[in-house]
C-alpha cells in the first residue's frame, strides 16, 4: 500500500514538474529585443474600483503613446494587468504571479496602501524595480529601499502644504481637523499635526467622521463649539460632501482646507451647489484644473486612447509615474537590465511631472520624486488655481 501511494505521488510530482518547467531562463526577465514586459496591479474590482481602471488607463495611455511612436530603443512596452481588489492576499498573489510566472521586467502598481505594503518586501527581495501607481502611504517608498519609486505627492505631504498655506493668512490661528479614520486618511494625520504646530498654529484636535457618514451634524456642532478659525478636512469625497453640506446648513462658515483625497471639480459636481463650498480650498496634485491649458495635453491623450473613460481627477494619478518609467527606460539605453533601470530612475532630475504640479527628482537615497502640490480655491463661485509655492 505504502509503495503504491508513493508511486502515485511520484507520478503526480513528475506531471506537475512537466507542467511548470516551460519557464524560460532569459538573461534578464521580461526583456526581448522588441519588447519590455511591465506588470501593473490595480484595484480593478471590488469596493475600491473607483481607483481601478481610471488610474491604470491614465498611466497606460503614456505607454500606448510611446508604443504608437515606435517604442523605446526599439522595444515596445507590453503590459500585464492584474487585479488586487484592494486586498493584501490578492495583491501579493498578483505580484508573485507577475514576477515568477509572467516574468515581468518591472512593476507599476498599487492603488491601496494596505494591499500593496506586503508587496514591498517581495519586490525588494526579488530586486524588481517598481513604480507606485497611486497608493499614498509613505512606508511603501520609505528608505531603506533600492527599488521602489513614486512620482506623485505622497500622502503625508499635503498636510504640510495645507499648514503652510493656512499660515499665510495671519487671521487664522486655531485649526481643527475633521476626517475619516481609514488607512488612506490616517497616513496624513501625523505630518499634518506636526506642520500645524510647526507653523505656530493652535491645533484643536481631530474629529473623526465615518467614511460612510450619512450625517455630520454631531461633528459640525462639536467643531463649532471649539470655535476654530479654519477646518482641515481629510475625508473621502462622499463624507466631505456630507460634512460641507451640514456645515453650511448649521452656519459653520470658517474656511475649509481639503486634502488630496478630494478634488474641487468633483466635489462641486457631487454637492451640485457652490454655496457650501464658498470657503473651500483644496490641495491638488495637478498643475491646473482639468479644463485649463496645462492639462490639455493629458486630457487629449486620454480622449485619444480611452475615449470611453470619464475625464476626471482620478484619471491622471498614474500618469507621472509612467512618464518617469519611460524617461528612465530611455536613459538606461538599449542594453537594459533591472539594475540599470534603477540607476536611471535615481538619476532623473527636474523632469517635468506632466499633469503633476511638481518636477520629478529622484536620488539614490530618496525615491519620493514629487514633493510639491498646488492649491486651488473657490473664488466667486469659480475654481481658481492659487499657485504651488507652499511646497
Amino acid at each position, binding site marked *: 500500500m505504502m509503495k503504491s501511494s508513493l508511486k502515485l505521488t511520484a507520478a503526480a510530482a513528475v506531471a506537475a514538474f512537466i507542467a511548470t518547467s516551460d519557464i524560460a531562463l532569459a538573461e534578464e526577465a521580461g526583456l526581448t529585443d522588441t519588447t519590455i514586459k511591465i506588470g501593473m496591479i490595480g484595484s480593478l474590482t471590488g469596493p475600491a474600483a473607483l481607483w481601478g481602471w481610471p488610474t491604470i488607463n491614465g498611466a497606460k495611455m503614456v505607454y500606448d503613446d510611446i508604443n504608437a511612436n515606435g517604442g523605446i530603443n526599439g522595444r515596445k512596452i507590453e503590459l500585464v494587468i492584474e487585479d488586487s481588489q484592494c486586498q493584501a492576499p490578492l495583491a501579493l498573489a498578483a505580484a508573485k504571479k507577475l514576477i515568477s510566472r509572467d516574468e515581468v521586467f518591472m512593476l507599476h502598481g498599487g492603488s491601496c496602501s494596505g494591499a500593496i505594503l506586503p508587496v514591498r518586501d517581495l519586490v525588494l527581495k526579488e530586486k524588481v524595480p517598481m513604480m507606485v501607481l497611486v497608493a499614498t502611504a509613505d512606508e511603501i517608498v520609505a528608505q531603506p529601499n533600492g527599488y521602489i519609486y513614486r512620482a506623485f505627492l505622497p500622502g503625508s505631504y499635503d498636510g504640510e502644504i495645507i499648514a503652510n498655506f493656512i499660515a499665510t493668512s495671519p487671521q487664522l490661528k486655531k485649526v481643527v481637523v475633521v476626517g475619516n479614520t481609514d488607512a488612506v486618511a490616517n497616513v496624513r494625520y501625523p505630518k499634518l499635526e506636526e506642520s500645524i504646530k510647526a507653523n505656530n498654529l493652535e491645533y484643536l484636535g481631530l474629529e473623526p*467622521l465615518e467614511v460612510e457618514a*450619512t450625517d455630520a*451634524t454631531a461633528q459640525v*456642532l462639536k467643531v463649532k463649539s471649539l470655535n476654530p478659525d479654519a477646518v482641515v478636512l481629510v475625508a473621502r469625497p462622499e463624507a466631505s460632501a*456630507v460634512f460641507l453640506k451640514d456645515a453650511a446648513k448649521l452656519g459653520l462658515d470658517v474656511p475649509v482646507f481639503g486634502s488630496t483625497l478630494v478634488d474641487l471639480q468633483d466635489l462641486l459636481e457631487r454637492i451640485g451647489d457652490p454655496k457650501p463650498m464658498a470657503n473651500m480650498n483644496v490641495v491638488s496634485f495637478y498643475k491646473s484644473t482639468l479644463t485649463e491649458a496645462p492639462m490639455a495635453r493629458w486630457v487629449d491623450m486620454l480622449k485619444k486612447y480611452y475615449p470611453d473613460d470619464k475625464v476626471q481627477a482620478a484619471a491622471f494619478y498614474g500618469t507621472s509615474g509612467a512618464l518617469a518609467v519611460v524617461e528612465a527606460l530611455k536613459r538606461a539605453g538599449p542594453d537594459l537590465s533591472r539594475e540599470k533601470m534603477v540607476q536611471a530612475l535615481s538619476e532623473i532630475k527636474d523632469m517635468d511631472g506632466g499633469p503633476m504640479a511638481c518636477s520629478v527628482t529622484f536620488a539614490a537615497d530618496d525615491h519620493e520624486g514629487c514633493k510639491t502640490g498646488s492649491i486651488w480655491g473657490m473664488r466667486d463661485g469659480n475654481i481658481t488655481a492659487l499657485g504651488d509655492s507652499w511646497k
Partner: protein
Amino acid sequence: MEIATLLSVGVSNGCLYGLVGLGLVLVYNAQGIPNFAHGELFMASAFAAYTANILFGLSYALSMLVAIVFAFALGVVVEFLAIRPIAMNRSLGRASTEVAIVLSTVGLMIAIKGLARIPWGDSVRKLPAAFSTETISVGGLVLSTQRLLIIVVAFVLTIAISLFFSKTSLGKKMRATSQNTAGAMLVGINTGHIYSATWGLAAICGGVAGILAAPLIFLYPDMGTRMLLKGFAAACLGGFGSVGGVFVGGLVMGIVEIFFGRYLATSMMDIFAPIIIIVVLLFRPQGLFGSRSAVRV
C-alpha cells in the same frame, strides 16, 4: 437650539434605522433568522429609484413608486428562489435549516452587492431630494425638508403596518404563521404565500428607507452594510417584537447615537451599533420593553 438641531437629526436618522429594523423583525418573526441581505434591499431600492428618475426620466413621485414596487418584487423573488427551497426541505433539522437560511442570506448579500458593482461600481451617484427647497427655518431652527419627509413617512408606514397586522386578514394570517407554523398550515393557511408576503413587506420597509436616505447620502453598492448593523441595533432595542417597539428602538438608537457623538466621542459613533447589539442581546434580550413573551408581530 443645538439640542433641538441634534434632536431633529437624531429622530430622522432613528426613523431610518427603525424602518430598516422593521424589515429585519418581520423576517425574523416569520422564519427565525436575521436577514443579512436586508442592507442590499435598501441599496437596490435606492438604485431602482435612481434608475427610474435619472436614467428613464420618470417623475419623482412615479420613480418612488417604481422603486417600492421593485423592492416588493425583489423581496418576493429572493424568498422564492433562495429561501423557500431551504425552508421547505424537511430533511434537515430545525437548527440546520436556520443556519442554512442565514448562510443563504449571506450569499445574497454579497451576490447582490457584486451585481450592483457592474453598472455602478465605478463612481458614487446622487439622487435629488424630494423637494426643491432643501431647508426650512422654524423659529431659527434649520430643518431639512428631506428629514421631515423621512419622519412623516416612517411614522405613517409604521402605523399602516401595525394596522395591517391587526385588521387585515392577510396580516392576521401572517401573525398566526409566525406564532405557530404547523398550526397555521393545519387551518389551511398557505404558508408559502405568507412567506412571500412577509419578504415583500420587509423589502418595502428596507426599500422605503433606502429611497428616503438616498438624497442625504450617496448611492454606491456598499451603502447597505452600515445600515444593516444600525437596523439590527434598532431591532434588538425593540426586542424583535412589536412594530411599535422597533420604531421606538430606532428612535432611541438615532437620538442616543448623535448625542453620544456630539458630547462624548465622535470616534465611537462607528461602533455604537455593534455595542448596542451585544449589550442588549446579552443582558436584555427582550429589548427595552416588555417581557420575553411579548406579543410577536
